[in-house]
């Protein structure tokens, strides 16, 4: 991807605005040649979402049959949403990165780092507002660093974020001395995000909803969103269309880092701790959710709603397994199977219309 930054010379110049409007730019040689498509295009997106909704309905039906007195209670639904919040927020950022043609493997570690940084004693003595700000700034900062490595350092996203995955975890361990850092009782405003309820839902669920809504708006209703599809679909064409691809890529990783910072705040609220062990393997959960949500791993196409549905499917599976007293190992098998099925269905959905 980064290789296409330098002008190939063979591609004809296109007017600046053509690309942004979604008009078909001249196909550059060697590019992936997909026009700037938004979402799944031609109804494919809706069909895919319906498939996920059907999966949710099916899983809910299993829940209703196996745990009739328990599954459909408001308490359980709230519980599922609160559990989905952490990974959900991360997944929103991840969706942007993947649509933009990249991948972010560092999300779990960056979340851990942000939680540890925010709970260091020095920060705790300044109170919850400073802690919250700290979590978000550290997350964004880590995202900016990865973004710089990718866009200006010309590292492949896989490598740059892999480096961040390892390094951020190490830094988190070093800062916390590998200990679990409790949020001090006097900073209970952090925990209140989990305990305070508004219309029956804890505040962390509203944070999740707000991030998801903001993500949807940003992706579907702004120039920034259109450019994200453009950059992911065909970076060379995007560049020719006048988009500053490097700066845009940098912003996408910063956005993902920001989401990790928000997720760190949620995990701090839920567990009342910051720890270098937080977010272990979250990168895989987030990427899996994005993929079963219908976003192409090669970039250029995807939706926030799909990713959120993907997260809910996973959370629902965990919930169902625990309600029925089944073990973690079986859950993992089920998750693996769901990823494969979703991608197989997605491929068929892609092939048939064209």
């Amino acid at each position, binding site marked *: 991807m980064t290789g296409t930054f330098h002008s190939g010379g063979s591609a004809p110049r296109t007017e600046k605005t053509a690309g942004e409007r979604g008009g078909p730019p001249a196909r550059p040689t060697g590019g992936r040649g997909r026009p700037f498509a938004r979402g799944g295009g031609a109804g494919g997106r809706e069909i895919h979402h319906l498939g996920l909704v059907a999966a949710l309905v099916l899983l809910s039906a299993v829940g209703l049959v196996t745990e009739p007195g328990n599954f459909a209670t408001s308490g359980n639904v709230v*519980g599922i949403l609160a559990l989905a919040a952490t990974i959900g927020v991360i997944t929103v950022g991840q969706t942007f990165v993947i649509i933009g043609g990249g991948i972010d493997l560092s999300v779990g570690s960056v979340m851990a780092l942000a939680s540890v940084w925010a709970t260091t004693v020095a920060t705790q003595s300044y109170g919850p507002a400073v802690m919250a700000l700290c979590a978000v700034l550290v997350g964004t900062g880590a995202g900016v660093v990865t973004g710089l490595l990718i866009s200006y350092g010309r590292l492949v996203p896989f490598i740059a974020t892999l480096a961040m995955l390892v390094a951020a975890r190490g830094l988190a361990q070093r800062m916390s001395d590998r200990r679990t850092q409790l949020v001090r009782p006097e900073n209970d405003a952090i*925990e209140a995000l989990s305990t305070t309820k508004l219309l029956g839902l804890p505040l962390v669920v509203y944070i999740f909803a707000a991030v998801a809504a903001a993500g949807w708006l940003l992706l579907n209703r702004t120039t920034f969103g259109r450019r994200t599809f453009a950059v992911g679909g065909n970076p060379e064409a995007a560049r020719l269309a006048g988009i500053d691809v490097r700066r845009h890529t940098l912003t996408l990783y910063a956005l993902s880092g920001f989401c990790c910072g928000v997720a760190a705040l949620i995990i701090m609220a839920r*567990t*009342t*701790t910051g720890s270098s062990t937080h977010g272990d393997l979250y990168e895989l959960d987030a990427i899996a959710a994005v993929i079963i949500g219908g976003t192409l791993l090669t970039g250029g196409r995807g939706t926030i709603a799909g990713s959120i549905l993907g997260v809910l499917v996973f959370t629902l599976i965990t919930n169902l397994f625990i309600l029925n*007293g089944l073990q973690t190992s079986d859950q993992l098998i089920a998750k693996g199977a769901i990823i494969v099925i979703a991608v197989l269905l997605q491929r068929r959905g892609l092939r048939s219309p064209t």
Partner: protein
Amino acid sequence: MRDQSPRPTRRGVLFGGAVVAAGSLAAACTSNSAKDDPSPAAQAGSLGGDNDKPGKQVTIGFSAPAADHGWIAAIAKNAEGQAKKYKDVTFKPVEPTNDINQQISAVESLIRAKVDVLVILPNDGEQLNQVARKAMDAGIPVVNLDRVFPDKLSYRTWVGGDNYGMGVSAGHYIGKKLKGKGASNPVIVEIQGIATLPLTQDRSKGFADALKSYGYTVTAKQDAKFTVESGNQVASNLLQAHKKIDALWNHDDDQGVGVLAAIKQSGRKEFFMVGGAGSANAMREIKTGGGVLEATVTYPPTMAASAIKLGRLIAQGKGMADLVELQVPQSITLASETVFKDNVDTYMPLGFES
């Protein structure tokens, strides 16, 4: 060869380990403010009998898993603290790691360095068995700490906690209390550590066996990963799964921080909870009272300090003061005690910070 004959004298009996232990408890009880001292057991050193007098110079090699967990962190601190008490001991720790492959090469490097005795807490007893055997064959006695090697030729002495006994202690506390209330068919929930480890299976077996003597069974069990975050997630789901719980046993106080946060956020108070390992955090919670956490069963990290002491004695060819034997015994299993409101002050100094 021996500098001091390890004759079992009356003085030895009088001033042996029991005195040491009692002394340490007394000292610890009166010095609750001595927060900086990492290991209360280390305070005992100066009170000992003959054995603590300087003897032959020995080098003790030490290898343990990475300290990303309060208990393991306390193990490393206890070992180091104890080794520093002796002028005749050179302490040679290798970099802690969770990678079995790395731990094997670390132990191999200690064998090559020809240390006088090895103290090893393996990540997995089965998988490190061969390298421990290699050390023994090379004439280096191995003190096996906690996770046991399957092959008795692989270690000179084993020191560790009683995992089965932890389950039994927790089972008795819960069984007795529920029986006292006249509960029939109570809902008893168990949150395990890493389900694949033999130590977890032993704990669960002890728990089930003890409950059986009261006519009770475990209603549901789920495994977490010894981390705060997984403890939180599993507890949230289990609370959903069971509308009414009578008692809950959580195997590990570190993951217990997350479990307690989940319980607090759910607002549930109808049951009581027993923890495991004995962290300072859990003990403070028990002392304060009013919450669901009523007790914890010990699995003291001071065993590392004991292992260093024993390793030194083995290398110096001495026996243990309170035993009439000329040499250190082959195996020592610590007792798992129940800490609750009435005795929490006694045990508080043994609590480790998570």
